[in-house]
């Protein structure tokens, strides 16, 4: 009963390095999302996907890229890490197309860029 799994849990990057945050879900959800959480700011949507092969930008997409080659996986890529990308990143998925379908979250990846 894994739900949404994110790896790694923690990571420290140097400015300019790249990395991929992994996210996989085993609930056969079509809808997947990446959020970042900054202290006192709530969660902001980075990118989302409505199905394999389809992705779209959220509120704060700059500096990030995503892909969705399978229903299960939705990796988030940082190409040139910057200190402003220090944050906690959450992947989530949802079942329904309707806007009141609740989200299921992973446990997060805590990223520090120095």
């Amino acid at each position, binding site marked *: 009963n894994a739900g949404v799994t994110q790896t790694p849990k923690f990571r420290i990057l140097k400015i300019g390095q790249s990395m991929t945050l992994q996210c996989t879900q085993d609930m056969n959800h079509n809808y997947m999302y990446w959020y970042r959480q900054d202290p*006192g700011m709530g*969660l*902001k949507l980075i990118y989302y996907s409505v199905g394999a092969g389809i992705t779209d930008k959220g509120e704060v997409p700059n500096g990030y890229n995503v892909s969705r080659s399978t229903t299960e996986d939705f990796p988030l890529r940082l190409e040139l890490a910057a200190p402003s990308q220090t944050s906690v990143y959450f992947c*989530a998925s949802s079942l329904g*197309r309707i*806007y*009141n379908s609740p*989200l299921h*979250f992973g*446990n997060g990846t805590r990223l520090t860029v120095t």
Partner: protein
Amino acid sequence: AQSVTQLDSHVSVSEGTPVLLRCNYSSSYSPSLFWYVQHPNKGLQLLLKYTSAATLVKGINGFEAEFKKSETSFHLTKPSAHMSDAAEYFCVVSDQGLTGGGNKLTFGTGTQLKVEL
């Protein structure tokens, strides 16, 4: 446009006393409203949701919330706090979908609940 305001960034209660976490929202349409809880180093977990059925919504772990359209509020309550309730709570509003489908959610900034012995 949708927005949500959590009126308290921190709330402290004694174990066994009532909990009140306040949330006001703004929405152009009939919104759906959610409360999520986040325990340390964990993801967010759904506590309860309102989707235009009963205005008093019961959730997990004894929490409930009342939708009051006239006051544009969706406050979260629990009659008796437990130590395990200590966490951060997020009020979330959704009144439309994202382009192409999915949920457009607007999160409040969170309320940190502390429960003391």
